[in-house]
């Protein structure tokens, strides 16, 4: 069974170059990618994550609203019964916000400039622990 990853952009920011790139690179690396696209509501992301039984959920946020949106998505996943699914976040994220994102429920954070290979390695490590 390939590892299933959900990639989505919560909130209203439409900059999806990074999200699409990561989705494609993960697919090429053998992951099964469920790509939802932009302007997704946290409750919908959570519902689909549970329904599709994904192994990890990746959010991409460039608007600056990453802490609030990560918390909302995490809470929605708990409410939907998906609290065992690891949540990772990438985007325009200052280093000083990384601890805040971890507090909000992210297990890994990939700020702009994170090499694609390290994202793949990190996702592999995360999902092998889960499995």
């Amino acid at each position, binding site marked *: 069974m390939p590892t299933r990853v959900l990639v989505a952009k919560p*909130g*209203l*920011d*439409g*900059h*999806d*170059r990074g*999200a*699409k*790139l990561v*989705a*494609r*690179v993960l697919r090429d690396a053998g992951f099964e*990618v469920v*790509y*939802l*696209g*932009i*302007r997704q*509501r946290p409750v919908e992301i959570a519902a689909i994550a549970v329904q599709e039984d994904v192994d990890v959920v990746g959010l991409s946020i460039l*608007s*600056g*609203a990453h*802490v*609030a*949106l990560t918390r*909302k998505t995490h809470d929605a996943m708990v409410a939907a019964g998906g609290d065992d699914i690891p949540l990772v976040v990438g985007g*325009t994220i*200052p*280093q*000083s*916000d990384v601890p*805040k994102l971890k507090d909000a429920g992210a297990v890994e954070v990939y*700020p*702009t*400039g994170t090499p*694609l290979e390290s994202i793949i390695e990190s996702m592999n490590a995360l999902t092998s622990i889960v499995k």
Partner: protein
Amino acid sequence: MAEDQRVVTSESGIPLKPSYGPEDLPAAADLPAPGVFPFTRGNFPTGYQGRLWTFRQYSGFGTAEESNERYRYLLAQGGTGLSVALDLPTQCGYDSDHPDVEEEVGRVGVAIDTLADAEILFDQIPLDQVSTSFTINGTAAILLAFYVAAGEKQGVDRAKLRGTIQNDILKEYVSRGTWIWPPRPSLRLIADTIEFCATDVPKFNAISVAGAHFRDAGANAAQEMAFTLMDGVTYCDEVISRGRMTIDQFAPQVSFFFYTHGDFFEEIAKYRAGRRRWARIVKERYGAKDEKSCMFRVGCVAGGASLYAPQAHNNIVRVAYEALASVLGGVQSMFTAAWDEPFALPTEESTTLALRTQQVLAYETGVAKVADPLGGSYYVEALTDAMEAKVIEIMADLERHGGMVEAVEKGYLHSLIADEAFRIAQALDSGDRPVVGLNMFASDEPVPEVEGFELDEKGRLRQLERLADVKRTRSAAEVTATLTALETAAGKDDVNLMPLLVDCAKAYCTVGEMVEVLKSQWGEFSQPVVF
């Protein structure tokens, strides 16, 4: 050995020769002086001698009060143009009290819910004397209605208002994401604004066709120009097809907007080729009689996706080269990005340095002294020709795919851009596209530590309070009457919606209410998922 030789190309894939000579120049008749159709060498015979390009810096603050204060400060410093950044809820058609958008209110720009906010935003600013540029698309018609109504409240006739709304929805469906309704009704609304500006607000630019966002999403320079010109054609076709206006009545109110990235000569060639191509399209396709209609008026941003986080100060140098290319390409206005943009909201210090970069270029280097200084260069002229040929080829391919609306609806445009973005990512990875500090001369220099931007919760609460106040004190009967009239008119194709939106604005209807009424008639866009 031939197989050992790699073909050197521009970033858009145009093959380059080791050197260029007289045989690469177009015939003299095909290269008229600056200010002469088809304007390859610039729109004006004296270049920047008569007037420098406009230095336009984009900024936005949480609430209308804070923005108003900032604008009045800028005007007191001698500024003549305002640039309004709106928050994402306003751009996507949600009111500040919508439960899904609370974390985005006032974040990347100012929140505007009703005319009351617009009145505060422009309080004590003489709207007959300043020019205001709005980066707004999905709700552009509504913001224009607010601006007209705010002007009238000040006693300023709409004919005296100057400024620009971006109002380019096609690129939103593909790359920037602030869409609301499907393409066809959206095009109708854009054509309504173009007609309305031509008849009622003649000094206002109804649309700024923005390829910049295609570029930032991954398109190369040739694609950026081709996609943008196709969008321009789509909007003009829509207006012309109504049979109520000729091209000469509205083309002077259409402008364009691009990114300038790092391939120096290709960027110069891009602007020269774009100017020539648009001039020819306007004359040949629409039969323009006035040469002013054929002028390609263009603004640009230096920076964006061409900037990188590692060794971030290198971005200062990149932006300076890009700004130089933009000027040699003959742009009319420019925004220079701050070096810290890849990882933070720019600081006042970094944005000031970005502005200084333009000022040094304009006043110290002497590049603005002569129109089109590179005109007649073997290489630049040949590259301009090659770029135009490539643009023509890409536009023809889009025509074969059913035109821009179909390319958007079916996801074809999305896939072209995603493919190019992926190709660039691979080239950066492999080092085929060299970037200093990223894939060569890399160092362990850490990314500078920056503060995250904390939203002022008080500002959001004040916004919610004002919205509640407006809803309490406005006339419910007027709100219902104007919204009902808007809804009825939206169902008919031959009514211009702008006067009705101005009525709604004056009745203090909210952005969200107007958007919902139009959604009830037109539905919502659903983005094709392509990666």
